Each structure stands twice: as structure tokens, then as C-alpha cells.
């Protein structure tokens, strides 16, 4: 233990209750490592067993045999598109709010409201955010953003809808990372800029934003990892078509209004909880997903190494 030099008290002399607690602590710690190792190794084993390169590069197709039913290129593309839309929408919101809270922040009641709102969004389950997305995008006002059925009902499910809700999911980590980075910049940097006659916005643009670049990068990476791991929003808001079905003939807008699937919903649908027919494909897709998440984890660790706390567990809110 960290008690330093000197005679240590051997557990053999302790009371039974304390020995039990010691054993439990060791078991809990090592048990978690074992569980994590088991998850990674098992997913790796199944993934290598079932992942074929042609799965990554072929589109899903309806077919009776597993051999003919194609791979998951469309879900991969769906995940990428959702991540792109989500980050595109969330980054300006997150960085802008963090800048306002850290640098301006008047009136105080408004700052408290904004901080509480972001905490509310962070604590909201993703299924509730998905239902909110449905409620919003099924309004007739937003009918152009998805498919409208012949009876007049707005479908409400499209890449735009899912991407917008994904940005809500990614917002809190980005906001927290940026705000913590801004608060960590020492006051003398700002004061030096003010002394040279710079306005506040100029110091933000020229001094502060460059110095929190790595925090913003950490936040974006955390947001991305939350987006690609999210299933509930995709299942509810992306229309659950196996292939990407653009809506209408306009090239990009049709895609945004269209439906599709993502890696996570593909895993969900292929497991016994969904259609259930192809656990092998589910394993393969889940393995790819896990690899992505691990890579993102490593990136966060690399970026955050310079500014982590003493243990490195909560790098800019990595776990929270």
C-alpha cells in the first residue's frame, strides 16, 4: 500500500471483516479486468471467425441464403453520414456555448439556465431524445426533411432527423471538454492580449481558441464515439431500411431525406432481438464497431495525455 517505509500491518493480523473487505476489493478490481478482457477477446474471436473482407465492401441485399445477402457497406456509410451530420451540427453549438459561458456569461441567470440545460441533455436517455426527434420531425413544418406518405402523414424518419438528434447526444461531452479547456487557460494570457488593445472577441479568435484546440479535439472524439455507439436514435429515427434509400431524385438532399441503417441498428436487427436471422453478420458488424470504438478511445487517450488528471480516468469527462 501507499503507506511508505516502515513496518506494514500484515493482513494476517486483521479482523475477519477487514480481511473479507480486502479480498472483495481485490476480487472486484481483478474481476472487472477479467470481464473486460473476456468481452474483447470473445468479440475478437467471433469477429475474426465471421468477418470477411467482402462483408465490408458489399451492400446488403435481400436473399435467401446468407451467402447472397451481402455485407454491411450501407450501414457503415450510414454510421459515417450520421457522425458527420451530428458533429457538424454539434460543434458550433458546443464551442459557441462554451465560449459564451467561459468568457462572457452575463446575465448570470442565463448562464445558469444554459449550464443546467446542457446537464439535462446529458442526463436524458437517448430513447427520450429519439422520441423527441420523432415528435419534432413529424410536424408538417418539417415535412420536407423526410418522406411524406400519400395519406398526408409525415414519416419523420430520415438521416437529417437522426443526425440532428445525434448532435444533441454529442453536445454535452464537447461542451464540457471545451469549457474545461477554456477555464484552464491562465488569466494572464487574456490579460496580455487586453493590454495590447485586443477586444474580447479578438482574443478569443487569436489566443484562446488555438490554445484549446486539443480540448476541442478531445470533445469531438468523445462526441463521435457516443454517436457511433448509439442505437436507440437510429432504430427510431432512421427508418430501418437495410439499404440506404434516398428520398426523391435531388442528389444530396435526397440522401439526407432518405432512410437507411447504421452499424448499430444492423447489429440490433440481426441479433435475436430484431429479425434474428444472422448472428454471424451481427458478430462481424459488432466486431467492426468495437474496433472503431477502441481506436477512438486510443485517440482520446493520446490527445488527453498532456492535460489529464492524476489518474487519467476522467479525461475531460471521458467516462461521464
Amino acid at each position, binding site marked *: *500500500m501507499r*503507506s511508505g517505509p516502515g513496518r506494514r*500491518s500484515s*493482513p494476517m493480523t*486483521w479482523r475477519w471483516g*477487514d480481511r473479507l*473487505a*480486502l479480498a472483495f*476489493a*481485490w476480487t*472486484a*478490481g*481483478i*474481476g*472487472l*479486468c477479467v*470481464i*473486460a478482457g473476456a*468481452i474483447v477477446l470473445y468479440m475478437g474471436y467471433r469477429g475474426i471467425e465471421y468477418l470477411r473482407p467482402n462483408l465490408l465492401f458489399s451492400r446488403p441485399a435481400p436473399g435467401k441464403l446468407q451467402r447472397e445477402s451481402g455485407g454491411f457497406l450501407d450501414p457503415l456509410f450510414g454510421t459515417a453520414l450520421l457522425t458527420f451530420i451530428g458533429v457538424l451540427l454539434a460543434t*458550433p*453549438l458546443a464551442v459557441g*456555448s462554451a465560449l*459564451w459561458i467561459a468568457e*462572457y456569461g452575463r446575465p448570470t441567470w442565463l448562464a445558469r439556465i*444554459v449550464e443546467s*440545460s*446542457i446537464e439535462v441533455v446529458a*442526463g*436524458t*436517455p*437517448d*430513447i*427520450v431524445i429519439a*422520441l423527441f426527434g420523432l*415528435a*419534432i420531425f413529424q410536424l408538417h413544418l418539417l415535412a420536407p426533411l423526410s418522406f411524406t406518405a400519400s395519406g398526408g402523414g409525415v414519416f419523420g424518419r430520415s438521416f437529417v432527423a437522426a443526425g440532428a438528434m445525434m448532435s444533441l447526444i454529442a453536445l454535452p461531452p464537447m461542451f464540457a471538454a471545451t469549457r474545461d479547456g477554456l477555464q484552464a487557460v491562465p488569466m494572464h494570457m487574456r490579460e496580455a492580449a487586453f493590454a495590447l488593445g485586443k*477586444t*474580447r*472577441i*479578438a482574443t478569443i479568435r487569436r489566443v484562446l481558441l488555438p490554445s484549446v484546440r486539443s480540448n476541442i479535439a478531445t470533445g469531438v472524439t468523445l462526441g463521435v464515439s457516443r454517436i457511433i*455507439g*448509439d*442505437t436507440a436514435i437510429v432504430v427510431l429515427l432512421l427508418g430501418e431500411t437495410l439499404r440506404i434509400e434516398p428520398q426523391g431524385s435531388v442528389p444530396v438532399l435526397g440522401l439526407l431525406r432518405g432512410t437507411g441503417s447504421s452499424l*448499430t441498428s444492423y*447489429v*440490433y436487427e440481426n*441479433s*435475436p*432481438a430484431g429479425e434474428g436471422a444472422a448472428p454471424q453478420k451481427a458478430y462481424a458488424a459488432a466486431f467492426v*464497431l*468495437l474496433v472503431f*470504438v477502441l481506436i477512438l*478511445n486510443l485517440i482520446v*487517450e493520446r490527445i488527453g495525455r498532456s492535460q489529464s*488528471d492524476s*489518474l487519467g*480516468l*476522467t479525461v475531460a469527462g471521458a*467516462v*461521464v
Partner: protein
Amino acid sequence: MLKRLGSPWSDHRAERLLGAVSLLVGVVVVVMVVFVAIHAWPTFQHNGLGWLGSGGNLSTQISAMGATNAHPPPSAYHLNAWPLVYGTLLITAVSVVLGLLVAVFSSIFIVELAPARLRRIAIPVIRLLASVPSVIYGLIGVLVLVPFVGNDIITSSEKASVQNVVQLTGAGLIVTVAILTVMITPIMIALICEALVSVPSSWREGAIALGVNPLRAILAVTIRAARPAIVAAAVLATARALGEAIMISMVSGGSLFSPKPIDGVVFLFEPLSTLAATIVNYHDGISAPALGSSLYAFALLLLFSAFVLSVAGYLIKLPLRKYQVRG
């Protein structure tokens, strides 16, 4: 106009712009609560708060709701969702209590007991466990744990004893609680470890100097000082457990049944469902007004409980503020 954007901005305009961006986030949250409440209103209108209670068969109620057309009669909105509320409470409470125990002792292990090499392994492991998507936990649960429990642990006499009421396939309480505990423990470990590290070690060393053995010193001094963080961790974990939908929908068996403790050991294997998991399972029928309104009512309840949780956490931490350790 582009030239105006390129020239130096005034502080006033920038402050207004950034303030508007921040306000947008607040507006989105308010709009979210309002919209969910609007869509949930019919359930409250026809049931009052009685929809939280028990009575009637929930599966028939929900399938009847799914079968209605665009203008259902008021009786279609009748709902008694107690099995779901009970399932949610049961799963969340058991997982959080178990997870808290495991998290506190794992944090003690990581911060105090582990040799340096083991600590260097344990910290990335915790981060890994926290970032695994819930669908992967659900996949391992439904493809590995559920068949294992269903075939190797539940005996056929146990299956026969309840087969008139419910099917025991292995997907049920114990698998759900086990996986959910593994999911929420890393969140708690991160917060508790951070707090344990920030407690001054001189406090613990003082206790050791007085003759207390090292582990008891940790429990009595460091953990006590980190109580605000433990409360914060429990609140965060409860919020996560309440909102977990996909993993639970995959491994809980999806049947709208309340597990009965009277059944003995079979209680651990009975299938159940939670509010969030039911939203996922029945989301196809959301265009039927009665079913849609019920699902939104579940969502409103989840929102409300998340809000109550954060307020409760704040209130619990207030008397603990006399300790200087940040929560």
C-alpha cells in the same frame, strides 16, 4: 457584406451572437420537454395518474392500442403500466446497489491496493468498459448469456412450474441485472477514483499512525471524505440505468410481466420489461394514437425521474459540503 465579416468584430455583436447560440441549447431543452408532454397528454387525460398502477393485463391493453385506427375511442387509452414501472425500479435499484458496492471496492483497489503495473492495466480497462456501446453488451448477453442460463442453469422442472403464465428462456432478471451492473460500474469507478485521489493522504496516514489497519483506515477516512462523489456517482449511474433501452430490450425477454419474488429461485429467471425497453420494442406502432401517447407518457416519466434524480443528488450532497473534497 463579406467584408464586414472579415473586418474586426465588435465585442457587442460577438457577445450577442454567442449568447444566442447558448440560448438555442436552452430553448431546445424546453421544446423537448414541451413536445414530449404534449404527445403524452392523452394518456394522462384518460387515465389520470392511474396508468402507473396495476390492474388488467398489460399485454392485451397494448396490443389493443396497437390495433386502433386514427381516432380511437377513449377506452382505448386505458393503461395500467405497473409491470413496467415495477420492472424499471427493480432492475435499476438492484443494479445500482450492486454496482455501487463493486465500484467502491474496485476504486479502493485501483487507487490504494493495486501495484503500479496492475493499476496501469486497470485504468484503460475501466475506460474500455465504459465506452463499449450498449448494443454490444446486448449482443453478448443475448447470444452467450441467455442461452447459457436458459439451457444450463434453469432446470426443466423450474420451467414447467411457471409455464402456464410465462416462458422461461433464460432472458430475464438475472442476466439483465448482471449486464446492467457491468455497464454502470465504470462510470461510478471513474468518479469515485477521482475523489479518492483528491483526499489528502495525510488524513489516512493519521489514522494509520493511530493504529488502525490500512484497509479500515481507507474505509473510515478516505471513503467517508469522498461521500459527495459516491452520491454523485450513484445518481449518474441511476440515470444511466433508467435510460438504458437497447441492451435491456435485447436480454430481458420483452414480456410485460412482473417477476414475483414468491416464486423463489425462479424469480431470478422470469422475463420482464422496463419503460425504456418497451418504447424500443413497440416503436413500430407509434403512429397509432393510443399506443403513441402511452409511449410518450413513458418517456415523460423517464424525463421526470432524471430531473428528480439530479435534484435529489444535489440535495443529498448539501449536508456533505462541510468536507472540502470536491464531489
